């Protein structure tokens, strides 16, 4: 199945979003916000989303300002 | 020790005659036979200025090359006690001022001075001012040769001509004995630097420098002239000035404006023309000889050579070496240049007893006693202990030089002398050390640089700023000013700091050694930051018991300080208008519109010398000064009435429908401000006097013009755009453009941005572009 992930066409066997996240090494859903086909998903939805051919997925990560010390 | 009473500078016969005629002029004035203006025109070139206190006058006594004999100082002290306030003031141009003299006493003072061989003639007005010289001339181990005799000779020559007292503006000449420029020759109207070329003593000559408004360093007029030609050069430059100086505008009359106007090449050509004429005709009058001061005051036979005497602990900063090892100069730093008559007498006595009988006044407002015998130094210092000012002599502190400031000067914004005293107090409190390496701090109470701030290692320029709607005295701190025989470099502004923070800032800078431009800039930045709320004292100037205000200040040489304050208000009005456009809430919008109206009404009041803070008084004064004379349309009254009604919770519930009127008023005020000239007069015509057609925007009325000759790409395009944005949409602008790149580029660029190019025609060797503003 081909998905467009962050603008790039990506081949995956994962049938659902949960598996796909694991495949993408996203360890905790808290780390990321996901837009699926133009809609921001609520985190509690992640487990119940099945993927379809051609889905557009965008991952948004939390980004700070570049930590300095330590 | 007694020297002959022969004066240093010989007073020319013409000056003597004029001084003796003065008594009758005063009498005629007091009898009411001459009007005050005419009398003032006579009095000021005599070196007599009116003080701020009614009926009291200041007499400025010029000292040739800054040098005076003991009996002359004694005379000055005695005259001050008899006719003035008993306190003398040493100026930054080596004069000594007698203060608080009643007008009836001025003839006695002038004749008393004349009797001692000194005079105040040319101490003020549009005259040849004191010809100054290195304060240590003749004694400084670093000098190339003694320049004092040359300064004196030039002064004696110029003073004998009555034309020297009716110049376009003042003419300041200075002589420096080496490249260090202690005499500030690089920023004088005419400056001479001693040079020795192939064994011949002579001068490198600078011209067209000057502090005051729009300060600048001089240009090199002559790389080298033999010293004997100095008089001829001074006369030639005087003639250039006399013929080309702008007598119609006092504020642009100084020699540097001639230089700025005609350019360096033309200026030099005019000078060479005058010199050629003088060489052909010979110098008129009596060119004085050079009297050898070294012979008179120079190294005597060593009477106690080799005996080293320890200087009393903590007083070594008062002792400067001379060329001869057995003699020293005593240096007495006068606080703010002031010295009591008693102390002055004592110093005269000291000079006669232990020195060579010669005293000098310095550009840093010190007195120097020359040629004190080392062997007698302990006695001399003991004598100093008896002065009232000894407490300040004994402290080695950085020099603080200040202009007279707002207390006696109508132009001043800030009380510069008050600040100077506060700085000195802070230096005492923090024990900040002085010494030869310590930077000189120069303070001017306004942008006119009478305190010499543009050449200060640290300079301070008084300004006014608004903070929380109130006026606050502030100073622009400048750093890096340098004078030298390679030309002057004016100090750069580093930031603006509330006046009340300046003493602490300077003490920190000097204690940390942070006096270099970059280090100072950093400290200034720290002190420049102003929190929302400030202690009450920040709104009071030093030594003032009422809040800081601009009321009563006249138009300055450029009024720059006043301009700043007006600009602040106009900016506030513009920003309130802007936010009124963006806010949705009607109440907030009305508040913003009211704020815009109030700021606009307040903005120009300072130029009428009015400073009010109550809102209804602002509007009242605005009505009187701007609406009634027709500067602002009478319709503004309705707007103000409605605004006040809204403010007071009356019938008017909103000002939103007045947005356009208030916008137009702000625009009119902005235009009026833009049209202010140096005398703080509007160049725009009052509406009442305006023909009706001129107020419309008939596009063919045209004739706004931007002369961009000499302006290169792309600045010409920038300036054309700026000029276009100042005329209404649909109106026509004429632009004068140079041939070549300018005419090839600017019309196309304007068209590209949508404006309508109407025509391009040849015009006085250039091109005249007519363009209609499209949007």
């Amino acid at each position, binding site marked *: 199945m081909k998905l467009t992930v962050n603008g790039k066409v990506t081949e995956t066997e994962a049938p659902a979003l949960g598996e796909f996240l694991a495949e993408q090494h996203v360890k905790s859903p808290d780390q990321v916000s996901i837009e699926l086909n133009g809609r921001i998903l609520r985190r509690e939805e992640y487990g119940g989303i099945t993927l379809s051919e051609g889905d557009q997925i965008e991952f948004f990560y*939390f980004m700070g300002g570049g930590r300095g010390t330590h | 020790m007694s020297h002959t009473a022969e004066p240093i500078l010989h007073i020319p016969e013409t000056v003597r005659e004029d001084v003796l005629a003065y008594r009758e002029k005063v009498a005629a004035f007091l009898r009411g036979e001459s009007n005050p203006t005419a009398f003032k025109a006579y009095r000021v070139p005599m070196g007599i200025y009116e003080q701020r206190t009614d009926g009291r006058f200041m007499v400025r006594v010029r000292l040739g090359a800054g040098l005076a004999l003991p009996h002359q100082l004694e005379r000055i002290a005695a005259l001050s006690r008899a006719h003035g306030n008993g306190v003398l003031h040493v100026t930054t141009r080596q004069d000594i001022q007698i203060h608080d003299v009643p007008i009836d006493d001025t003839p006695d003072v002038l004749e008393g001075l004349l009797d001692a061989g000194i005079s105040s003639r040319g101490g003020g007005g549009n005259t040849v001012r004191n010809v100054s010289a290195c304060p240590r001339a003749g004694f400084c181990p670093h000098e190339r040769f003694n320049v004092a005799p040359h300064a004196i000779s030039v002064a004696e020559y110029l003073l004998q001509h009555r034309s020297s007292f009716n110049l376009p503006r003042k003419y300041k000449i200075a002589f420096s004995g080496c490249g260090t420029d202690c005499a500030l020759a690089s920023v004088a109207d005419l400056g001479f630097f001693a040079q020795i070329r192939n064994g011949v003593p002579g001068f490198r000559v600078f011209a067209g420098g000057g502090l005051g408004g729009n300060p600048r360093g001089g240009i090199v007029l002559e790389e080298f002239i033999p010293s004997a030609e100095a008089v001829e050069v001074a006369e030639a430059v005087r003639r250039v000035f006399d013929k080309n100086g702008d007598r119609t505008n006092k504020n642009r009359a100084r020699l540097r404006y001639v230089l700025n106007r005609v350019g360096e090449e033309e200026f030099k050509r005019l000078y060479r023309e005058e010199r050629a004429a003088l060489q052909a005709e010979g110098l008129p009058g009596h060119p004085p000889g050079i009297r050898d001061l070294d012979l008179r005051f120079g190294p005597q036979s060593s009477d106690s050579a080799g005996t080293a005497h320890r200087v009393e602990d903590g007083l070594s900063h008062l002792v400067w070496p001379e060329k001869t090892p057995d003699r020293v100069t005593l240096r007495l730093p006068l606080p703010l240049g002031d010295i009591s008559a008693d102390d002055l007498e004592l110093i005269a006595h000291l000079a006669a007893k232990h020195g060579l009988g010669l005293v000098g006044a310095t550009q840093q407002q010190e007195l120097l006693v020359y040629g004190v015998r080392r062997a007698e130094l302990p006695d001399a210092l003991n004598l100093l202990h008896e002065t009232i000012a000894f407490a300040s002599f004994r402290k080695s502190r950085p020099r603080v030089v200040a202009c007279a400031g707002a207390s006696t000067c109508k132009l001043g914004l800030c009380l510069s002398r008050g600040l100077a005293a506060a700085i000195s107090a802070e230096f005492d409190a923090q024990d900040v050390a002085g010494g030869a390496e310590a930077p000189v701090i120069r303070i001017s109470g306004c942008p006119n640089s009478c305190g010499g701030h543009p050449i200060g290692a640290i300079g301070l320029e008084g300004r006014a700023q608004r903070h929380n709607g109130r006026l606050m005295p502030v100073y622009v701190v400048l750093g890096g000013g340098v004078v030298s025989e390679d030309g002057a470099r004016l100090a750069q502004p580093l930031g603006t700091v509330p006046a009340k923070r300046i003493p602490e800032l300077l003490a920190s800078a000097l204690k940390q050694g942070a006096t270099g431009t970059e280090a100072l800039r950093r400290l200034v930045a720290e002190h420049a930051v102003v929190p929302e709320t400030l202690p009450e004292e920040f709104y009071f100037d030093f030594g003032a018991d009422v809040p800081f205000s601009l009321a009563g200040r006249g138009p300055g040489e450029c009024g720059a300080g006043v301009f700043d304050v007006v600009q602040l208000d106009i900016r506030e009005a513009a920003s309130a208008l802007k936010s009124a456009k963006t806010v949705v809430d009607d109440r907030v919008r009305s508040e913003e519109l009211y704020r815009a109206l109030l700021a606009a009404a307040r903005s120009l009041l300072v130029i009428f010398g009015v400073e009010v803070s109550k809102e209804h008084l602002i509007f009242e004064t605005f009505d009187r000064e701007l609406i009634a004379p027709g500067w602002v349309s009478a319709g503004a009254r309705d707007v103000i009435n409605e605004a006040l009604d809204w403010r007071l919770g009356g019938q008017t519930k909103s000002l939103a429908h007045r947005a356009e009127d208030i916008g137009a008023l702000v625009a009119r005020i902005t235009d009026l401000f833009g049209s202010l000239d140096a005398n703080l007069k509007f160049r725009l015509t009052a509406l009442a006097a305006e023909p009706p057609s001129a107020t419309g925007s008939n596009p063919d009325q045209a004739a706004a013009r931007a002369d961009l000759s000499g302006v290169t790409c792309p600045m010409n395009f920038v300036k054309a755009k700026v000029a276009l944005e100042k005329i209404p949409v649909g109106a026509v602008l004429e632009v004068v453009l140079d041939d070549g790149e300018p005419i090839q580029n600017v019309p196309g660029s304007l068209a590209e941005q949508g404006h309508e190019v109407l025509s391009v025609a040849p015009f006085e060797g250039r091109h005249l572009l007519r363009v209609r503003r499209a949007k």
Partner: protein
Amino acid sequence: MELTDLQIERYSRHIILEQVGLAGQERLLAARVLIVGAGGLGSPAALYLAAAGVGTIGIVDADTVDITNLQRQIAHRTADLGREKVLSAAEKMVAINPDITVNTHRLFLQADNITEVIADYDFIIDGTDNFAAKFLINDACHFSRKPYVHAGILRFEGQMLTVLPGETACLRCVFGGPPPPGAVPSCSQAGVLGVLAGVLGALQATEAVKHALRQGELLTNALLKYNALDLSFRRVPLRRNPHCPLCGDAPTIGELHDEALPLCDLKETRP
């Protein structure tokens, strides 16, 4: 406001631009922009806005300059180590352009002071380095209806979003709220390419300038993603999220509150 000849020269390259002109430059001089954070993002933004002649610039930071800052926080120099960041930055800004007024706010923005600080400004730049501050700014700008631009940077990537509160998608539309403590290993997020901060900070300044000029289109309802390694910019379209806890259909956030800071953040921003 009448520009002096010197100002006309200083801003000539702006004035030439058709979309700017004299009127635009005057708008810039009348503009009031607040930069929160005088760090990696705030530095370039502050310097460019100063150079551009933005008349009043506020800068907020409670920190002092630390040696680890200098790799990317270009408003500060080695000689500034230990100095208050706001003063160090203000000094450089005024040195570039003495026309402008810089207001320094040496404080840590919190729920109880942020509304007052931002009240004086027309546009806010979020140049902070921690999530608590980022969401606080987002929320405060929402309640005060102040337009602002968010940016974040991480390793070789950055992102940015401009928010017109009440009109366009906000930070909470995308992320809901800050990650729960521990979910994002913030202590390991220390790595960042220095110049990345410069790119994003300069882009934030661009938004502030466009806003003042009222020219062009702001980066609203779209999140810009920048990847320095493959040098790609992507503009990902967004919509307001009806589930947004702040500006959605059934908001749950009715007032400002301070978010908890992860331990690393605490150490750094509250020395």
